[in-house]
């Protein structure tokens, strides 16, 4: 027993002696070939650990977990990390490839001047749909009306799901009504709530988990969800040789945007490798590999030439400058606003 424990400790000891970069990320959020290429170029090993939710990662780091170099948090998670003194400022001199970033994604409210973070990838929240059915029914998928307007919904009753996420559903309803996705005006919230309650009887479910599968099977025709999931659903539908595809694009009233960013922890064992890794990921070719693999949008302007042609035309991957103006990142809500939204959401959920 002692021997085994000793062996365990030795194994743990030797692992830290070689050059290892510890990446703390979502699962499947970097292309395997990118990892291999980086390992070759830095003559080191990349060890990945995964989290299933941003809150998990925050809780773990806040409690003092150490040993990770680079983490990929979503924008809203960065201010609390800065506040808790978890991040170290980026040394821009070591990141020449930062010039590849699309300026539209830089200088975001959560990290003015990109002191701590550089954008990695983004996804938009939009509507994915069964291209054959929606065309047959003559429905316009480029407006949020497809999930909110009872006149449109009457044709697709019971074939629509929306995310089980109060913030995202309210943001969509706010934009549909012409308000800001980040509005905290009680009257505007009330209006959005009315829109949602009117549309709800036509929806099959609030679904944030299995809509990829439901779309692919043809059980539902319209889903409110994330762009990278719609990309996956379309690939699955093709693989299953369905008679339809899953199409998606931005809504004309605007969409919400979530940007994931690369940050270096203050306690990073190898800040040198961390900088090398971030610069490597900012190379257009490497950034494009992720987009090609899972269909996320890329904030990297130099990636365009390496992205598969059919994806380059997709507004959810490369929004035009005009569409970009309509994309909004959700800001963190304060205590009372959160409680108010919670109350409005409960009313939505219980409404008949």
């Amino acid at each position, binding site marked *: *027993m002692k021997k*085994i*424990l000793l062996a*365990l*400790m030795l*194994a*743990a000891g030797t*692992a*830290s002696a070689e050059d*290892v970069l*510890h990446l*703390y990320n*979502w*699962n*499947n959020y970097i292309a395997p070939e990118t990892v291999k290429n980086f390992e070759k170029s830095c003559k080191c090993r990349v*060890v*990945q*650990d*995964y*989290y*299933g939710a941003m809150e*998990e990662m925050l*809780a*773990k780091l806040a*409690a*003092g*977990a*150490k*040993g*990770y170099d680079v983490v990929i948090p979503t924008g809203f998670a960065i201010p609390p990390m800065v506040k808790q003194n978890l991040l170290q400022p980026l040394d821009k001199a070591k990141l020449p490839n930062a010039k590849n970033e699309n300026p539209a994604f830089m200088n975001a409210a959560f990290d003015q001047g990109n002191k701590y973070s550089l954008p990695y990838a983004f996804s938009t929240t939009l509507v994915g749909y069964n291209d054959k059915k929606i065309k047959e029914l003559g429905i316009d998928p480029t407006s949020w009306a497809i999930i909110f307007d009872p006149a449109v919904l009457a044709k697709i009753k019971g074939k629509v799901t929306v995310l089980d996420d109060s913030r995202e559903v309210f943001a969509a309803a706010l934009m549909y009504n012409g308000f800001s996705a980040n509005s905290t005006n009680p009257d505007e919230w009330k209006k959005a709530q009315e829109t949602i309650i009117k549309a709800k009887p036509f929806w099959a479910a609030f679904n944030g988990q*299995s809509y*990829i*599968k439901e779309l*692919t*099977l043809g059980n539902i025709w319209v889903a409110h969800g994330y762009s990278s999931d719609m990309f*996956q659903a379309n690939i*699955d539908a093709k*693989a*299953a040789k369905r008679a339809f595809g899953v199409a998606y694009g931005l809504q004309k009233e605007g969409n919400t945007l979530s940007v994931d960013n690369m940050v270096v922890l203050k306690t990073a064992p190898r800040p040198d490798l961390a900088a090398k890794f971030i610069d490597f990921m900012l190379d257009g070719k490497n950034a494009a590999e992720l987009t090609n693999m899972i269909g996320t949008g890329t904030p990297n302007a130099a990636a365009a030439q390496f992205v598969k042609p059919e994806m380059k035309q997709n507004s959810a991957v490369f929004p035009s400058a005009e569409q970009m103006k309509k994309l909004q990142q959700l800001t963190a809500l304060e205590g009372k606003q959160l409680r108010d939204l919670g109350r409005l959401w409960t009313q939505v959920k219980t409404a008949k």
Partner: protein
Amino acid sequence: MHSKQSKWLWAAALFVYAFLYLPLIIVVVYSFNDSKLNAEWVGFTFKWYEILFNDAQMLTAARNTLLIGLVTSICATVLGTLAGLAMHKYKLRLLPLLVLTPIAIPEILMGVSLLIFFVMLNMTLGLVSVTLAHIAFCIGFVAIVVRSRLQGMDESLVEAARDLGATPVQAFRLVTMPLIMPGIIAGALMAFTLSIDDFVITFFTAGAGASTLPLQIYSMIRIAVTPEVNAISTLLMILTLCLILLASKLAPSALRAE
């Protein structure tokens, strides 16, 4: 006599078993399905197992899981058995409370508090911290099983051995230990299974590069349950089944209610 009542009981039992086992059977069946979707049968394939055995991350996680499970079950069994003996022999108030509390408190509390504790000790999180955490929460389970086994034991047997000149150690080794062996084995198996499928405590105490299968699977299902997850689940089920069979061979009474 087959009364109407017993037919109903049979039907109820069948329903319960179907509810428990059908989902497991579906997972096994779909691990051989030649489609990325868990929804319809396309054709038979072994490719998910091939993918699994070429997935370095998954294999490292599997190795970590088994290593942690093994060390945990050995350490927790020794310590838990000692605790069970002490609780049975001496009528202590504090010990049961101390040993059994980790069973009762919410896992998330235990995970976070252990993490803070390890950080305070300035310990690098990794396999060692996960193993220590697992031993900590498994001791209580082993102790309970061993104690209940001891309570069912005839105390006069030990006294008889002592009367015949056995030293306390001999009496323990030759009489008590064989009698409580089923309990010890059951406790060890319980510790092993608890260790291999714990998620919450493991999540908080695992450091960089010390992922286990539950952590790996959980991070994978965010995108959708892939057949690779079905394949690894099937293998875990087979492992568990083998352990239960082994237990029934080694200690037939450990699995029987007494």
